[in-house]
């Protein structure tokens, strides 16, 4: 047995038909963009709207990706996720306010350093609060969905009130630093600089997350735990410990998303989390509960559609994401990329 060698796995796989990759959800996104181009008419306006939609989608993905894994891994319905978004946004107001010298400097480097500092501090604070939230609020109600909904919503209300105690109840402006204000122009299309930053950060988070999930043992455990938590434990892994890590990471990502969302809106209110909560729940349902890939496509669909409808039919914009969710669930009741065991 010891002297035997394993034949090349690639050679072994060569004899096997390729696994089918479901590209229809991606084609749906492409089709939506093409439809948007036809309805908007002007390519430059379409490009502006599309970049804005993708930026919005990437920010929503950053926020929602943690939530979908939290649900997938431990069946925890965390309606309090929004509080980490608000926390991240308010921490950003303090950090960027304290670094006014850097944010108003004409130096692009100092501007970016200020924004990245705000992101890092927001992630650390949101992650730390997330750790406490899991221990105090979520842990006592594992497996009890109704109580999870009630207590996590209660947690969010308490969190919002604490934010008001610290930062006050009023809206606080959160302007992007000098270098991120204004737009680039591609022909007649105006591309806001900050939105490009949001796309870049969102893409980076997505790539890092996909790398971790597909190339590391921890990622493998998360993906397996989402499918069959019990079997992962039977293989000798402590899923609860893994879940705490995912919860803290998800909270930190929500904090990061809060910074980007606050800069996107250029102001923050204590209710910002509750407002975004609706969107992120739509996204994780569209994507398939527990599915990171589905969450990514779902977030981009929601972002792009919201921008197209906001331009074409503002009265329909509020309703459009609900309509998208209904249409997708009629097509795929388990979401775009359902997790197999669910």
């Amino acid at each position, binding site marked *: 047995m010891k002297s035997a060698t394993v034949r090349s796995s690639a050679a072994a796989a060569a004899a096997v038909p390729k696994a089918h990759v479901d590209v229809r959800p991606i084609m749906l996104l492409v089709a939506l963009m093409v439809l948007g181009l036809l309805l908007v008419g002007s390519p430059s306006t379409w490009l502006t709207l599309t970049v804005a939609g993708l930026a919005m989608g990437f920010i929503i993905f950053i926020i929602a990706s943690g939530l979908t894994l939290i649900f997938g891994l431990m069946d925890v319905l965390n309606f309090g996720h929004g509080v980490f978004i608000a926390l991240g946004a308010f921490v950003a107001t303090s950090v960027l306010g304290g670094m006014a010298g850097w944010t108003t400097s004409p130096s692009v480097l100092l501007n970016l350093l200020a924004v990245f500092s705000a992101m890092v501090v927001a992630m650390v604070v949101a992650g730390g609060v997330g750790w406490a939230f899991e221990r105090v609020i979520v842990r006592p109600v594992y497996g009890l969905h109704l109580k999870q909904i009630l207590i996590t919503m209660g947690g969010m209300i308490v969190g919002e009130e604490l934010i008001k105690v610290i930062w006050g109840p009023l809206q606080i402006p959160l302007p992007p630093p000098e270098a991120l204000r204004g737009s680039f122009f591609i022909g007649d299309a105006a591309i806001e600089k900050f939105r490009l930053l949001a796309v870049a950060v969102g893409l980076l988070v997505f790539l890092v997350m996909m790398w971790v999930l597909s190339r590391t043992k921890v990622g*493998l455990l998360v993906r*397996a735990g989402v*499918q069959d938590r019990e079997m992962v*434990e039977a293989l000798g892994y402590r899923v609860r410990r893994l879940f705490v890590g995912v919860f803290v990471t998800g909270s930190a990502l929500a904090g990061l998303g809060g910074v980007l969302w606050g800069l996107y809106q250029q102001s923050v209110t204590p209710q910002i989390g509750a407002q975004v909560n609706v969107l992120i729940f739509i996204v994780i349902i569209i994507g398939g509960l527990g599915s990171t890939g589905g969450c990514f496509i779902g977030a981009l669909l929601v972002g792009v559609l919201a921008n197209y409808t906001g331009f074409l039919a503002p009265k329909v914009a509020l309703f459009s994401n609900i309509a998208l969710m209904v249409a997708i669930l009629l097509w795929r009741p388990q979401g775009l990329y359902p997790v197999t065991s669910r």
Partner: protein
Amino acid sequence: MNLLTLAGVHTHIGAYHILHGVDLEVPEGAVTVLLGRNGAGKTTTLRTVMGLWAASKGTVRFAGEAIERQPVPEIARRGIAYVPENMGIFSDLTVQENMLLAARGARHADQLDRARLQWIFDLFPALQKFWLYPAGKLSGGQKQMLSVARALCEPRRLILIDEPSKGLAPSIVNNLVQALRELKAQRTTILLVEQNFRMARLLGDHVAVMDHGRVVHTGTMAALAADAELQQRLLGLSMGLSTGLSMNAHA
């Protein structure tokens, strides 16, 4: 020497009282087969040993230590592998990723014990062929092979296997029997739940028969196989040995 001992084990699942004082001894280095009709408590016994359902009363001792209050991962880390009835494979993961998860000591596929892996490939050649294929796309028999192979990925002291032949074609069952016989030849301790009496007879050294949540008979498989009256009384079998039919077909 007994590797696993259950004494007076009771298990409740919600309002249901499933095990009513199970006493069972699993000798080291042998295959013990747990027989009984559907609903007798066989699967519950395995899940209780694994900690997936907590024993409400009684003791479960593994290698001399009580494990009935231990969390599932701690029980697994003591060297107990579990092959569930539903196979428990991760459908969205490849065969390679499923195996990597089963090898706790390996962080990457190239850290898997190559010699051991080759031995597993020799037992189940399909797994090598479909190494990078999503496990959910495998046939039922291949999934069962993967499920058993995962339990063999690292040395284990005890393997709990729940109805490996269920729903499989006879030719696939034969492959599985061959693989388990090879394990048996290496003196691996196995506690096997099996409805297919032909397979049970081929593999078992010892037998325990369950009924209504209790062990009602223990002995050697050879003694049970030779006693048609005992089979009839315990299992409701009628010439099951010669026909190779399962208990379900006769009960």
